[in-house]
């Protein structure tokens, strides 16, 4: 299955969307794993935070299809679509891409 991920990137005032396409076998993949796949296979310049990858630490909080969630605890199948929009948490100073103050 092809998944389209649109990531809101850049620093404050200079934001833009970049779209990546990833081939996925299992819809139970988490959004975090999708983004890691993007970093590994497509674009190492994408900046984001993640640490525990088990839904405990909160590092990977971001806006996913309009809702703030933990990327490591959100599965593709939970979203019911193969088109994903991710962006940094709102109302915060953006350091780069998905990383906020």
């Amino acid at each position, binding site marked *: 299955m092809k998944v389209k991920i649109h990531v809101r990137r850049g*620093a404050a005032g200079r934001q833009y969307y970049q779209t990546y396409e990833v081939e996925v076998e299992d819809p*139970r993949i988490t959004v975090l794993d999708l983004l890691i796949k993007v*970093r*590994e296979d497509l*674009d*190492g*310049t*994408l*900046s*984001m*935070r*993640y*640490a*525990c*990858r*088990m*839904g*405990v*630490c*909160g*590092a990977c909080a971001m806006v996913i299809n309009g809702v703030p969630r933990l990327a490591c*605890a959100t*599965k593709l199948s939970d979203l019911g679509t193969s088109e994903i929009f991710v962006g940094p948490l709102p109302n915060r100073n953006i*350091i*780069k*891409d998905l*990383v906020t*103050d």
Partner: protein
Amino acid sequence: MEVLEYDVVVVGSGLAGLRAAVAAALRGAAVAVVTKVAGPRSHSISAEGGMAAVVHPNKTGDSYELHAYDTVKGGDFLVDQEAAITLAYEAPKEVHFLDSIGVPWNKDPDGTFSLRQFGGMSKPRTVFAKDKTGFYIMSAIYKHVKGFSNIHLYEEHLVTRLVVKGGAFHGVVAYDMRRGELRGFAAPAGVVATGGGGRMYRLTTMGFLNTGEMYGYAMRAGLALRDMEFVQWHPTALVPAGVLISEAARAEGAYLVNRHGERFMKRYAPERMELAPRDVVSRAIYLECLKGNGFVHESGLCYVGLDIRHLDPERVKQRLPLLLELSKTYAGVNPLNELIPVRPAVHYFMGGIMTDIEGRALDRDGNWVRGLWAAGEAASTGVHGANRLGSNSLAECAVWGRLAGEAAAAYARGRRPAGELVAEAVKAEEERINGLLRREGGGESVRGLLKELQNLMEGGGGIVRSERASVEALKKLTDLRGRLNNVRISDGGRIYNMELREVLELEGMLLAAETVLLGALLRQESRGAHYRVDFQNRDDRRWLVHSVYFLYGGNVMTKQRPVNVTRWMPEARRY
């Protein structure tokens, strides 16, 4: 360029680092905590099962000596026995300290601490807060730290160099990811509390930041590592993600079963069964898989079942809520009526920066590098020997975090930071990093190399080892070290450049990996977590010794040091 001056600089903000910071701050020191995470998100936050401490000797007929003895035996007698005594005597004070800052320990109706029995412990002596102990501890201590005006947190600062000169510590250099600049921290005293390096392996229960580069950086600064070949595999990581299912499950009565529904542990540890130490249980699962008694996951991984279906569902919901949640999210199973698919994954590094039993960091000859301490998983105090017992690590982090923090503050009093020395080191590091960023060409990707590292570590430094496999892995590692020079960093910026961080991490990881593999190759016996198919027995005559690793002329060298056997003579280890 900026060099900040403090009395004590602590590297790392896990339980060990924050405990050290509090202890030093209470003695009036100005403390900088320099750490690569943001907020209380160090890996300690993921600790689940609990913390070992003999808090109620009378309630269970327990004693400090028994805790120490269990630790020594669990570590297959490679433990420095006085370190185990220190752990046992000091841990209860730390439980009370954490209680006083608001950790919601589970309590029994009579107001005493609830206790769990962990693997290799001969009494229930593990205190806990549900199965999210680390989360509660880190939330409480982080908040506590924020209340000190003399502790300053520098978050998302990757420490790339320890500044050591003339046998003494002077400070650190860090890459401030948010500002994209290097910063120096000068202080007469330092505590390194950088945790473990699970990400050197493919399958690990540790988070993404546990890369273990500091093991390598420490050697570069002239420090020695000890016992790096002893890497703990936790028996019950969820398949396929590697997320940990706590030993608390087995402490609460869970069974391990193979595909025939058999509780196979009865063939490996007839007395302790599922609650044998982790090395024993992990090896048993490995062997069941080898014999074709395991299940096979769609990913190809072999696994066994963790069975809690006979436990009271109400009690499970009460005491193991995280287990239910993790099983559902990461394996799609409901443990109340299905088996949980589990297999071993890398979980803890028994080895680390060599210290004495007070936590003072040592060079290869055993001399103290003045002003420097190491604590927590990053350190090798000798307390865990060849295998750590579950729940002894949180105790270790708190105990040696405090001891190191207190001693560092006392040492710093009346001494001045050497700002110029650190400024020089910042300049040198600046040049080196600029070089990395400017490097043209080179077709290697850092994540590609990391994957290769993870695979070769599993091959040569896995649950079961052999001369052939370790030699093979060491060869591949040498090749990787060469290719590291051809890595290209595609991110041209300096702000939050994750590729730069990953390259810097990988440099240290490759050195650390070499010590693990070298030890796996050289130690011709099986002891604790180190198991050699070609030398299947423990050999006390030749190998009741610590392995020491250090850099000499840029190469990893090794030598041996005696184990301090002061109370209990080595005996056969049966469970």
